């Protein structure tokens, strides 16, 4: 408990210090609870998510960093490894390949990498996975782009 608090506090200071270091990630800690974080990440360029800003919710367990944080998308996203309804993410480093050397910041980076390189063979969103697996890259891209426009971009007018 103490260890996780101390470590999160360290990460908080690090985030404050290097706010501008990674313009694609904006990590914010909950005002009253250091175990709850939110992040805004920019969709990687040359992907259907480009131009969108996605919100992530982190829930950090008390055993952190021995156990991974729970992360989910708050913004709707059409991606083979993200559950369409709950925003749950299927990523090995958040499950069995977790290592205490990862930080919340690096988890965000890993999620951005996952957005750019979807893994259709272990899908949480079967529709999206099936599109990619059947080779319909264009279909997947247009669906993903549509949801990015609808959910992850500021409304015009």
């Amino acid at each position, binding site marked *: 408990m103490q*260890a996780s608090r101390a*470590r999160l506090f*360290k990460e908080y200071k690090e985030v404050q210090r290097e706010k501008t270091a990674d313009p694609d990630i904006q990590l914010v800690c909950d005002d009253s609870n250091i175990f709850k974080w939110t992040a805004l990440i920019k969709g990687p360029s040359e992907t259907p998510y480009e131009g969108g800003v996605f919100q992530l919710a982190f829930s950090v367990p008390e055993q952190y960093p*021995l156990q991974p944080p729970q992360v989910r998308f708050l913004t709707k996203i059409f991606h083979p490894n993200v559950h369409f309804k709950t925003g749950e993410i299927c990523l090995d480093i958040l499950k*069995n*390949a977790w*290592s*205490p050397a990862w*930080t919340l910041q690096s988890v965000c980076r890993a999620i951005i990498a996952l957005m750019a390189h979807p893994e259709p063979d272990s899908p949480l969103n079967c529709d999206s996975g099936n599109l990619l697996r059947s080779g319909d890259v264009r279909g997947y891209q247009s669906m993903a782009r549509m949801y990015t426009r609808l959910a992850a971009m500021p409304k015009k007018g």
Partner: protein
Amino acid sequence: MSKRVLCKFFAHGACLKGEHCEFSHDWKAPPNNICTFYQKGVCAYGSRCRYDHVKASRAQPSTPSSSIIENQPLVSESVVLGNTRITSNDVTTAAEFSLSNTPYVLPSIPAWNQESVHHDFLREDDVVQSIITSPSELPICSFAAAGNCPRGEQCPHVHGDLCPSCGRHCLHPFRPEEREEHMMSCENKQKHLEALKRSQEIECSVCLERVLSKPTAAERKFGLLSECDHPFCISCIRNWRSSNPTLGMDVNSTLRACPICRKLSYFVVPSVIWYATSDEKLEIIDTYKAKLKSIDCKHFDFGDGNCPFGTSCFYKHAYRDGRLEEVALRHLGAADGDTIIAKDIRLSDFLANMHLS
């Protein structure tokens, strides 16, 4: 010089300085059991004191500087007692005083040798000149060794040569063995200090803190992984390695692996300093293993128990009569061509595998 006296902390099993201690860690060395308060005249414990209430001269006949005094003419009892006070204990207190710029005032005048301090300084000159024959018997000036001697050129004692490591004039010009010993221990001390300095900055990748800045002494240790060179606190890496494999984590590829490079290491070695070269790392690991080898394995329990680590155990497997365990490994050829090493075969294992209910 003081190497000959048994370290009090070592005797209680609690010396933190290890091989860098200036006192002897050899059980054969004579213990210094003299009460320092009694030397100054007053000991609050009186007859209940756990230390010896004797005058320093009788208890430490081997101290080199006292050899001068034994030959001194006995004038009166009080004078003799006063002069015998030039034992190592007294010299250190005097040396400390020279540092605080009051070289000639002693902390407290012993009740039983009021006059003697002055006698000391007045007589020593003649004493030294009349008795000392070989230059190696000349006592070294502890004022000079501590930094600066107020008497300078006129000092009757030998002013030691400069030690290149500690920068003090403490090398006796005519005692080669002592010089060697001092240089060796000084160099080791210096090396240890430098390594400590280097290690200060190193951070653990799990708690993200500087390992040597942790709040408790037990935490201020590195955990070296055998197969890679990533630094962690001993407590962090041990916690990670012993944490429960949840979420389908594989023990070998996740928990036993380095959190950074995922290289599999089978053991962790605690160390106060971080190494700079692979040789240093090897030395730390070997010292650690050698230390464990001298401790009896609690699983083996002198042959009564069964150690799950078998031949790979770091601890000592010895029977009560001191005989070491001899292991002959049994290799069994399995049907598929693999070779397996048979552990102790017990009937209970077979029964457990039969799934009788």
